[in-house]
């Protein structure tokens, strides 16, 4: 499908499905927590599958499949392929679906390490787990093509509603690629790094949370993933200047969005 065609053939009353893979359910709550918008939206689209809210029809043909969660098991791959096949467009929501999420910290374990985790958490019947478990937690895009993405852990209702709204208008959702610092300053928040000496990932993290952590007086920990052209090297140097150890710095970048290519750098 050429870029030009994107959203060209969207039904007047599109069918929408909300699917979950490995996740905490928090991104779907962006719908449920803004129940007014959900109810309004349900007058414009047919929500054919949304297990957490009620409707069930997992493999129905849909215009838009909204996917939360990462792929951690063999069974997930199969299910995902079925969903993609039946969906005209796929919108991934949240860190899990886009970068693998926090559970992708397992990707740093080798085979032996993972086995020790499996045995540690599930002492009985580990074989069931091992048979199904993939060695990595990966984003949806690692297995099937994805049309649109909304970052965040969790995403916000505003992001979700405006993305769906844009799709209904037949245009792509807008991407926010600036850093958290931008909305931090817009909100008139005092920079926590400058005024409190709190290490903050804001300068390299994608905007979208309205600078939530700095507004609470603490540093950002990057739950929206990397901003475009983030200067990771310069921020790591700043953290060193502030006295953080190499391990502390590594942990900062290897957290919610550890697999995000934009967060890699010396």
């Amino acid at each position: 499908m050429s870029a030009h065609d994107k959203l060209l053939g969207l039904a007047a009353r599109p069918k929408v499905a909300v699917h979950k893979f490995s996740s905490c359910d928090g991104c779907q709550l962006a719908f449920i927590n803004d129940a007014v918008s959900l109810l309004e939206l349900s007058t414009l689209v047919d929500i054919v599958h949304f297990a957490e809210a009620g409707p069930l029809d997992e493999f129905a043909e849909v215009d838009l499949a909204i996917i939360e969660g990462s792929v951690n098991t063999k069974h997930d791959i199969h299910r995902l392929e079925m969903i993609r096949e039946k969906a005209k467009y796929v919108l991934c929501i949240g860190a899990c679906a886009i970068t693998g999420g926090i559970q992708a910290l397992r990707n740093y374990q080798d085979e032996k390490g993972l086995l020790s985790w499996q045995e540690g958490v599930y002492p009985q019947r580990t074989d069931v787990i091992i048979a199904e478990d993939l060695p990595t937690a990966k984003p949806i895009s690692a297995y099937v093509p994805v049309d649109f993405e909304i970052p965040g852990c969790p995403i916000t209702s505003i992001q979700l509603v405006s993305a769906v709204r844009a799709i209904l208008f037949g245009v792509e959702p807008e991407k926010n690629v600036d850093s958290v610092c931008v909305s931090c300053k817009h909100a008139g928040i005092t920079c926590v790094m400058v005024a409190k000496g709190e290490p903050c990932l804001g300068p390299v993290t994608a905007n979208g949370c309205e600078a939530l952590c700095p507004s609470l007086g603490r540093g950002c920990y990057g739950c929206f993933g990397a901003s475009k052209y983030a200067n990771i090297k310069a921020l790591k140097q700043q953290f060193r200047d502030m006295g953080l150890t190499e391990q502390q710095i590594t942990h900062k970048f290897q957290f919610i969005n550890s697999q995000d290519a934009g967060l890699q750098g010396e």
Partner: protein
Amino acid sequence: MSHYYFLPHQRIDDMLSALKSDGYKCVAPRYHDGSIGYDDLNKSSELPWGYHDAQAPGHYEVTKTEHKHAFGFTLPTTSVKPMLFKAKENVWKVARNDEGKLAFEPIVEFEKIAVFGVRPCDLRGIEIQDRVFMENSYNDVRYVKRRENQFLIAMNCTKSHSNCFCTALGDSPFADKGFDLAMTELNDEGFVVEVGSEKGRVLLDTLNLAAASGGQAQAALSRIEAAAEAQTKTLPPIKEVEAKLMANLEHPQWDDIASRCLSCGSCTQVCPTCFCHTERDEPNVLGTETNHTREWDSCFSIDHSYTHGDTYREDTKYRYRQWLTHKFSTWRDQFRTKGCVGCGRCVTWCPVKIDVVDEINAICK
């Protein structure tokens, strides 16, 4: 009658009531959670009595002292800009009916605001933004309305922080124009007050203030001079800076800065003169109405120079160069004035301590 009046600390509240009865909402620097920024002011006791600040590149710290002054700090974390040119606002909205008809409606919101304690650099920032939004080929009605409904009480500096550099630009920490009233604080006493406009005179008349004594007026002046002398940063003459920056667009220093700069845009967002913004639509869920917003943008943001097929300033080095050359050079051609007022905010709030003055000196050497 002397040119100067004297407002004792105990009578600040009278001034606030006078402003209030004129319909103004009063705003002043206030202390909250480790920093001093503008907030609503209801009574004089809410002023940051005794607070001092220390600023250095990438460093800001506030301490409480026993001194009996309200303006013992240098300048608040933010300028007056957000009160006139809002960080984000709806500029118009449009409704669409079932037939698809569009009804556009401008949104112009303003209130009467009196700003108590505007530092001279921030006053100059307002003057510069006036040229963008009010004295330009097209004007912004919102800005104009807010400006008309603003009452400015300037507060001359009696202290400078170590990032201040208004003197290096040929200015001084003294408000010479653009205010309704200007004051200078004398420790433990009150303010020497000067009138700058008819609005200011009318307000002052209602307060029936005594004239400042010669000693008080002199003390005020020497305190301002001391603040000026406390500034340590220097720059070549501004005309020279303006020419040299544009003549050195390929200077190796730009690459050096780019390796340190986070491209976070904090410097532009705290700047009292930066005016860049972006516009965006925020439709409601049902799609029946849309708000068209205007929100601060900056030349550090990726979208700023994005044009289909080419992002002209893709590298940080070009983005930083845009910021510095615009502030300190091309601004003159655009608005017949400088783009910088020397408040030092961009230096204080740069998380990685990049100092524009150092960078300019390195390039203009």
